[in-house]
């Protein structure tokens, strides 16, 4: 029994959630092989070989793997699948897009977004926006699994020296063409892995007012999140959305500002260690999950918050 872990990377570096996926894979079986598909992705393959939990790295390189299209990636994985009992990937947009295309070809009922490995065939996964946890057992011979990265620790990233093998590239799928990717570059910590997240909702009223959130986030070295309402209204871009169909975050501190707390939003943040809610509606559901609730007008509270933080005069890392 061996586990094939599909590494997510940008051709140079591994994406941080690959480290969480490796941890999950190693809980299924210790023989974890990392598959790095890309174009000139030798550095990413090298980084994968240094993960102590990885026993072997397989790289498959070709120009048509440059942009990670599922139509090109799936045949590569399917060709290697015979040697593995489990195929594992992160349940972010990369893995969500790719894994079902593999599972269907292998005639396997995929197990999405697991938060716990009970045994090699039994897993726990959230359903109904995390309002219930289902323990499920797969009867398929080969299992295709995506893992929720925030539910598994990152693995060690150095000290390993797994051998790197090359495998042959497949043909290009000519019916899908990559045009462009617009990535929002930021010096802030990544939303998915930040220690502190400050999020704004519909209560922010417009995009300009998000500068109040930005100021607090700057002070706390925090990532910036948002509710779907705020993204839909155009206050902030989609990559900030936290919730059932956005990102799931588990920071040490989550500060929800002007967010009422629909169950779809709670699904993305209620596992946070400490939750603060600032909302002028004392009945808002967000207060039911908040450790510290402040019933106040955010336009008064946020500047005061910044002032108090400045008084503390501590540097956040």
């Amino acid at each position, binding site marked *: 029994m061996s586990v094939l872990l599909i590494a997510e990377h940008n051709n140079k570096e591994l994406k941080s959630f690959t480290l969480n996926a490796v941890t999950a894979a190693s809980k299924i079986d210790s023989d974890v092989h990392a598959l790095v598909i890309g174009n000139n992705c030798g550095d990413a393959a090298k980084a994968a070989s240094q993960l102590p939990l990885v026993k072997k790295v397989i790289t498959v390189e070709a120009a048509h793997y440059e942009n990670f299209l*599922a*139509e090109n990636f*799936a045949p590569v994985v399917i060709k290697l699948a015979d040697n593995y009992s489990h195929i594992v990937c992160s349940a972010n*947009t*990369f893995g*969500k*897009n790719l*894994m*079902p*295309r*593999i*599972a*269907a*070809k292998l005639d*396997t*009922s*995929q*197990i*999405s*977004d697991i938060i716990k490995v009970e045994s090699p065939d039994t897993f726990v996964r*959230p*359903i*109904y*926006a995390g*309002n*219930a946890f289902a*323990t*499920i*057992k797969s*009867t*398929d011979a080969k299992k295709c699994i995506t893992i929720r990265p925030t539910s598994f620790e990152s693995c060690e990233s150095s000290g390993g020296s797994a051998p790197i093998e090359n495998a042959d590239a497949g043909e290009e799928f000519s*019916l*899908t*063409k990559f045009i462009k*990717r*617009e*990535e*929002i570059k930021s010096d802030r910590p990544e939303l*998915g892995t930040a220690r502190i997240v400050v999020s704004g909702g519909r209560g922010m009223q417009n995009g300009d007012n998000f500068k109040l959130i930005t100021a607090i986030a700057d002070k*706390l070295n925090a990532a910036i999140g948002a509710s779907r309402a705020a993204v*839909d209204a155009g206050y902030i*871009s989609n*990559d900030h959305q936290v919730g*059932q169909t956005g990102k799931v975050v588990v920071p*040490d*501190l989550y500060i929800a500002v002007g967010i009422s707390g629909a*169950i*779809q939003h709670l699904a993305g943040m209620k596992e946070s*260690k*400490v939750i603060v809610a600032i909302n002028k509606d004392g009945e808002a559901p967000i*207060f*039911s*999950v908040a450790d*510290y*609730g*402040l*019933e106040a007008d955010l336009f008064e509270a946020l500047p005061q918050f910044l002032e*108090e933080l400045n008084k*503390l005069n*501590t540097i956040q890392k």
Partner: protein
Amino acid sequence: MKILVAVKRVIDYNVQIRVKEDGTGIVTENVKMSTNPPDDNAIEEAVKIKESGKATEVIAVTIGEEKAQETVRKALAVGADRGIHVKVDGVIEPIAVSKILQKIVDKEKPDLVFMGKQAIDDDCNQTGQMLSALLDWPQATFASKIDVKEGKLEVVREIDEGLETIEINTPAIVTCDLRLNEPRYASLPNIMKAKKKPIEQMNASDLGVDITPKIQQLKVEEPPKRKAGIKVSSVAELVQKLKNEAKVI
């Protein structure tokens, strides 16, 4: 151009679900059901494309128990031309759903298949991708913008890093994000008219698809509850608590 749209009946997104005491599942009796929200966006987009003159027919298909037909009826009321209801009782996994849809595609030969990116009940996010794998068609998942061109679509996809634009040749599968459009409400006259539109019914077994679940659900439980927090009276108190009690800043 013909567009097939798959819709699913789920517990309404506003309902606070309850776990059955015996741990066998979720309480569904006397609970409000409705169309899976992003499936409404899929129907809306198909109808808009038809209204722009770029499509000739929109077919809504659902798979589920007798009452799932309501979901198709709703699609007909907002502009779909006809419906298909594949009757299935009990749990059906995305792999089986995609095999049934493959049979429907073989029969109807649509140029496009639209559906929501994820169902809000099982949160699997699989069916569209699986169907495109079975058909060897291009897939555009998590679509927030669709431009119909001659023989192709340009689709903007929402990804973790931001936005990605791809071009796919038809026939193709698109899974829709909630931001793709603003679904319309059905007017009363259109609801009445929809009652006369045809819905073809069939059984999954008629299609020769094995829908036996391959995943056993051992138990369903409530997630651990957060213990109730406190209300603070001022920002100063909040900051002190965060520093001295929670020790997170």
